[in-house]
């Protein structure tokens, strides 16, 4: 979508897991994906919304704990607020975490940008006996506060009305938070220095003055030079008086402002007993039982996908076969038409009949567990293991996302503060079988090799990742400093998993089917023109001599580079069979091929994202290791199995 530059901009800003993406989805029709762990919103998601006949640009900024960025995701948010013309900030707050959230609210108010507070997760805070007095909070902040429950769309209408009021108001006059006297003096002095220079930034001079003292690295060199001498004086003075450096002193003061406001506006109902869900959480995080649950979780997820996938594919088979029987008579009357139709139809059949049945339960079940908040618990439990391979628990979140799709997983590495660790994680992500590849693995297993082999392949891939991670990290030093938020465990709403599955389904139908139909068509044409032979001949040394597979599979590798699930569909095409159970290959060959395809190259979109995030060198690196690994692994499988 092309977004008109003249539109006024509304930005949703808040800490991770405040529900920003959920609100964004409610306010717009596009479905950005939501997730219950930090750092899911890492690419800027924007859309156009209509408020009383005026169009606005709505943007969902990456979650940030403060405006002093610690990682790339937070940097993106700060850059956007400082440099772009934001006309209104919706500061979304998780009402169960009022005091922590207010620390950032104070900072956001300092930017001078018109603002409104969305007090989200009201259902949760009520359930936990937390009551927040909206009027009092409005008095303290002197900006509108709207209680909402974004997940059910409650209060969103009020929020929109209030936004519209604020956008047409000419003046706004939020609270000003004073720091303790000698800090405040330095702020005022810095502000007067900055006033001598006009800046084209979107934020107030007071905000810039505070940042010039607190965290000057985020300012451009002109402002930094202008304020460097006062920064030096203030830093020395504050360190002497407060025994904390100036950054920490300011943070502590903001923190105290937030606590003071919270004390005034929040009341807690005393609880007789901890709710069941908190007790459950103790078990899930338990040093022993936690791992038992983790194992059960894997087994459950695995069997569910397998069983559901099998059921779905059996159901889908019936209409698919029926359609095929409709055009079969053509074979006698007009063979050319028959072969063209059949070529395209088999592409569709492969996609819908083979890949989709496993893709759907996979997405549904994974996003269901994401919604509960369990994934952060997994990160917690396997942090120790990650350390062994030179990464820390933060890499777990992108890794787990990688089982869905490498693209968002690579974006999610932005929550990793350490640059080298971030690169390592991103280079390893393409090795993780994404939903497309998992569907392929499951489908082949269901048709031929049996479920246990699937487990083995996963196990193998994880070991490979561990070894490679270990080797790379030898060159990069030890990771320290995992600080990962474990959000409250939630009873998930079924709405979001179904929504995500639907989105995935639509994307699949749009993109995959297009590729498939085109692919099948091209495949049919190349076959007609006898070009396939050359492609197959080209890959033959690899496919047939080294790996001992049917030569016809060569051409499928090209399609697999476009989208991984195409491999399996094109495989039936290339070998001229109608379903996988009549695949003219031994189980050993199937497994060799599967492991090769799983590892051999990041797909096209993954490469594009790697390039965008890290540049060519990481693509080259990731591709090289994946090709080498694919070869070695396929050979290992070949020799062990035959």
């Amino acid at each position, binding site marked *: 979508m092309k977004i008109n530059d003249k539109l006024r901009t509304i930005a949703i800003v808040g800490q991770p897991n405040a529900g920003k993406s959920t609100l964004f989805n409610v306010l717009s029709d596009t479905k950005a994906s939501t997730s219950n762990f930090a750092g899911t919103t890492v690419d800027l998601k924007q859309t156009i919304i209509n408020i009383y006949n005026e169009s606005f640009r709505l943007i969902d900024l990456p979650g940030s*704990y*403060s405006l*002093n960025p*610690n990682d790339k995701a937070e940097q993106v948010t700060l850059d956007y607020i400082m440099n772009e013309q934001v006309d209104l900030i919706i500061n979304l707050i998780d009402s*169960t*975490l*009022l*005091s*922590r959230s207010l*620390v950032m609210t104070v900072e956001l108010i300092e930017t001078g940008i018109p603002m409104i507070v969305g007090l989200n997760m009201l259902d949760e805070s009520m359930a*936990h006996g*937390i009551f927040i007095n909206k009027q009092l909070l409005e008095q303290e902040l002197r900006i509108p506060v709207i209680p909402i429950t974004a997940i059910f769309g409650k209060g969103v209408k009020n929020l929109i009305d209030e936004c519209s009021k604020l956008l047409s108001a000419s003046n706004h006059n939020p609270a000003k938070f004073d720091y303790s006297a000698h800090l405040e003096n330095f702020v005022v002095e810095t502000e007067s220095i900055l006033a001598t220079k006009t800046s084209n930034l979107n934020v107030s001079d007071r905000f810039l003055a505070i940042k010039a003292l607190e965290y000057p690295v985020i300012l451009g060199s002109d402002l930094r030079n202008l304020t460097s001498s006062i920064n030096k004086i203030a830093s020395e003075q504050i360190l002497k008086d407060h025994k*904390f*450096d100036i*950054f*920490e002193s300011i*943070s*502590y003061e903001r*923190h105290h402002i937030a*606590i003071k406001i*919270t004390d005034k506006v929040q009341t807690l109902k005393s609880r007789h007993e901890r709710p069941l869900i*908190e007790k459950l959480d*103790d078990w899930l*995080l*338990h*040093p022993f039982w*936690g791992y038992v649950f983790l194992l059960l979780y894997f087994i459950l997820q695995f069997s569910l996908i397998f069983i559901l996938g099998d059921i779905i594919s059996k159901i889908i088979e019936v209409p698919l076969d029926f359609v095929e029987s409709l055009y079969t008579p053509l074979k006698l009357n007009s063979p050319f038409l028959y072969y063209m139709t059949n070529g395209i139809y088999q592409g569709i059949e492969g996609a819908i009949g083979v890949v989709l049945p496993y893709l759907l339960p996979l997405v549904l079940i994974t996003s269901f567990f994401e919604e509960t908040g369990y994934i*952060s618990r997994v*990160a*917690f*439990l*396997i*942090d*120790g*293991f990650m*350390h062994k391979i030179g990464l*820390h*628990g933060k890499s777990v979140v992108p890794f787990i996302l990688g089982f869905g799709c490498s693209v968002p997983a690579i974006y999610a590495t932005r929550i990793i*503060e350490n640059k080298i660790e971030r690169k390592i994680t991103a280079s390893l992500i393409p090795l993780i079988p994404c939903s497309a590849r998992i569907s392929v693995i499951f489908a082949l297993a269901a048709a031929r090799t049996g479920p246990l082999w699937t487990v083995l392949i996963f196990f193998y891939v994880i070991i490979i990742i561990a070894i490679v991670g270990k080797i790379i990290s030898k060159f990069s030093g*030890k990771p*320290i*400093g*995992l*600080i*990962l*938020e*474990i*959000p*409250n465990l939630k009873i998930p709403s079924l709405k979001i998993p179904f929504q995500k599955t639907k989105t995935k389904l639509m994307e699949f139908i749009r993109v995959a089917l297009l590729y498939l139909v085109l692919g099948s068509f091209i495949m049919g044409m190349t076959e007609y023109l006898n070009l396939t032979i050359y492609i197959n001949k080209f890959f033959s040394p690899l496919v047939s001599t080294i790996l001992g597979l049917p030569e016809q599979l060569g051409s499928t590798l090209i399609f697999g580079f476009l989208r991984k699930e195409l491999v399996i569909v094109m495989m039936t095409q290339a070998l001229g069979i109608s379903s996988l159970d009549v695949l003219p290959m031994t189980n050993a060959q199937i497994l060799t091929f599967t492991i090769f395809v799983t590892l051999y190259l990041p797909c096209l979109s993954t490469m594009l994202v790697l390039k965008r995030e890290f540049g060519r060198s990481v693509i080259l690196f990731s591709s090289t290791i994946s090709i080498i690994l694919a070869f070695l692994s396929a050979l290992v499988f070949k020799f062990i199995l035959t």
Partner: protein
Amino acid sequence: MTLSEAQTKTNLKITYIESDDDIRRKLLSMGIHINELLIKVNDNKFGPVLVLNPLYGLTKLALDRELAEKIQVEYEN
């Protein structure tokens, strides 16, 4: 004693954090503050320590073992 050694389910007060600026700042922004109360919820011998800042509600933070060894705490009643 360090946070890593402290007993679970007890109220602790942080006295000192020995680490570089980046990490101390990150801790600060997530609610780990010197002189403030902290509850150690859980201790996973294979991995991180789980803590909770009662002022900040129910959300828990997982801290690396290495990091937990750098955070000095004392018992507080």
